[in-house]
């Protein structure tokens, strides 16, 4: 089963994202803190990672850097979810190693399609074409 790691501390958002991905046939691995997200990313090797930036312990940028620094990293796509206020910091997000970013709010009806489009994934195809 395709696995997606969702690092998100807001329970409502987590629930909403989970609805969206499970509906498209993903198994959602939830992580509520940055450190937990790093650990699960290395252990579970998901297809990609949805990474909230504002997290209670280490923020999404730091978590991304740690994942990228780990030996297990094989350029796994990391999609950052930014709050509106973070808009000006997108260069920071990309510098930290994120593949792409979405702004909140998340529309559960379109989020999965958008990510598939972005990552070049179609249907149940699990290969990843990276955007250069």
């Amino acid at each position, binding site marked *: 089963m395709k696995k997606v790691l969702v690092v998100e501390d807001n329970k409502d*958002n987590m629930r909403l994202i989970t609805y969206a991905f499970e509906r498209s046939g993903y198994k959602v691995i939830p992580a509520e803190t940055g450190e937990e997200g790093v650990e699960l990313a290395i252990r579970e090797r998901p297809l990609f990672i949805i990474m909230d930036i504002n997290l209670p312990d280490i923020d999404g940028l730091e978590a991304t850097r740690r994942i990228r620094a780990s030996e297990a990293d094989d350029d796994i796509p990391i999609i950052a979810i930014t709050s509106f206020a973070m808009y000006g910091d997108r260069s920071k997000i990309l510098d930290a190693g994120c593949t792409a970013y979405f702004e909140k709010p998340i*529309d559960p009806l379109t989020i999965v399609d958008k990510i598939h489009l972005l990552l070049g994934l179609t249907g149940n195809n699990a290969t990843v074409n990276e955007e250069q």
Partner: protein
Amino acid sequence: VRPELVIIPKLTNVFAVIVVLFILLRRWLPQEEHEKAQLNALVQEQISELAEINNKLRIEITERKRAEEALRRLNRELRARSNCNRILMQAEDEQELLNEICHVICDEAGYRMTWVGYADDDDAKSVRPVAWGGVEEGYLAEANITWADTERGRGPTGTAVRTGKTACFQDFETDSKAAVWRDKALQRGYRSSIAIALRDESGNTFGVLTIYSTESNAFATTEEIRLLEELAGDLAFGITALRNRIERKRAEESLNHLAAIVESSDDAIIGKSLDGNILSWNKGAERLYGYREEEVKGRSISILIPQELVGELSNFLESIKNGKPIEHYETSRLRKDGSRIEVSVTISPICDSCGKVVGASTIARDITARKQMEEKLRLANAYNRSLIEASLDPLVTIDADGRITDVNAATESVTGCSRSELIGTDFSDYFTVPGDARTSYRQVFREGMVKDYPLELKHRDGLVTPVLYNASVYRDEAGDVVGVFAAARDITERRKAELELQKLNEELEQRVKERTADLNKRSAELTESKGALMNIVEDLNEKTIELEQANSKLQELDRLKSMFIASMSHELRTPLNSVIGFSSVLLNEWVGPINAEQKENLAIILRSGKHLLNLINDVIDVSKIEAGKIESTPEEFDLHDLIFEAVSLVKKELEEKGLVLRVAAAHQQMRTDRRRLLQCVLNLLSNAVKFTEQGGVTVETRIVQVSGEKPEACVAEISVTDTGIGIREEEIGKMFQPFVRLFSPLQSIVPGTGLGLYLTRKLAAEVLKGDIMLTSEYGKGSRLTLRIPVRLP
């Protein structure tokens, strides 16, 4: 001494005693009475004879003893004297000498106490003890001996000083003159005393040697007195000789000292005989004249004197012979190398001990440098004087009494009096009003100066010159005011000019007066109007200030409001996202099927949520712009792509309404805030779709080169045209105001925030640095055109 003389009478005496004893023994034997009586008488006779002999012997023995004692004492005194003489020969210090003599006299000659006193010539005529030996025990301090003819002066010491003759107390116990000293003398064991005068070379008594003995009549024999007098004579001689010796030594030292001073003096010091021959020549002279001492000693002083001044020498020598010194005489002298020097010469006579002039000493000081200085000073003074004389202003100096002390040539010509006539006369005499002149220089003395003091100078011929005086005090080196320096400036010409000017002025004044009267009248009228105006201006100013204050307060409030709304709206959005998200999930039956009515209700929740979200987003944007918190973030993109992205977002609505969409977008590389531009274009599209029920929406882009600007300074025009309801011409202006929604049949059904165009125009202007234009025809449709620079800096 003949000891047998003593022994023989003693034997006689023993013999007589034996006879007496024999006779007495016989008395006890049985004898006749007569015989007894005869024998008795005989014995009696013998006894008295023996007693007489005995007596004579006793006296003889006493006298011999005394003679012996006297002899012994004389011996001791002789020894003392010889010791004293030894001390006198060796003495170097007077006090030591006196101390030793006193000790020797007591120790060697066996006297109780000896002291030396000097006769002071003070009022009390005191005899001042200077040295003593033996048992003194404070006696001298209490004795208060004087050489005056008083009670305390009539003892041996006082008498000896006063008369120069030796005097004695043979016995302090009995001598009536000793009464004042008796107790104290006896306490210390003094029975008799002798005082011998000490005389100097001329025979004058300067002191006294007084000796005390424990025995009465110790100083009775002439032999002894003579010895002591000789001792005193030796002592006096010793003291005088010592004093002379010391005096000589001191004189020698002082002579050496003087010689050293002379030798080290910077001045030339020359000794010469009365005929002008050089006798001595110090180092200063060597330096000054260039001759060494051995070169000039014995030669005439005239070698130093220039040819034309040779006469000076005989004059000097003549004066010196008469005992008159020559002091600080300034003249010229020749050095060995022939150069001339200026010297100041002081010549003093040298006298022998009898006061006869035997030579002369010359002290010469080099004053060449000083002379040169004086010459320079003289030249400087002459120069200064010439400046003063050259002045055309009359210059005068005045002393404290107002007398003229100096004048320049200009003063002479203005008064007609010569310099010599002027000096010493009263300054104020040369003015038409002397009282004023006096007042002026008194003011100078009082205040230090006067400026432009007007006076009138009087020529002796009667001509009057009006002047302005400038004067100030001048001071000597110590800073004390010496007098007044006054300079007068002739103002005759100036006064003439002033008079002419005055006349002109008067004429002018008259004309001015006439004009002024005229003007005053008009001015009064104007003043009135001006006053009224001023009041209005003042009111306005006040109002302006009030308004400005109110305005800045309002601006601050407005900014606070915008910030509050921005942050609050942001907080509202998070729960709203959940409302929208979960409504979508439910509506799409992700978690189970719902019936039609439930679906309809959920659609209302979703639509309301989205509307609220739009509203909040717009409010945040507007607030940010108004609070000045929004910044443009330029990035590179293709305008064509952006247009198609915007279109794709409204495509669904267009299709639902059955409207036709036409897009004519050029590929144009842009550098501007993509996100905000997208927002603007989307707003325009949404608006067009909202207010159009049939027909279609057209999107066109055009790149316009701005005339006169650089080629890259292009403007992109993006226009969105609809075939909707249109806007009445008079309402076009209201379109860009916030929360304005025009009355229209669609109003109640078309969702809108009322902020769309307002925000779009704000973004276009503030972020994209462009503007937006609206053209519309009521009932036919509208066109909104966005004009923005292709590249932001």
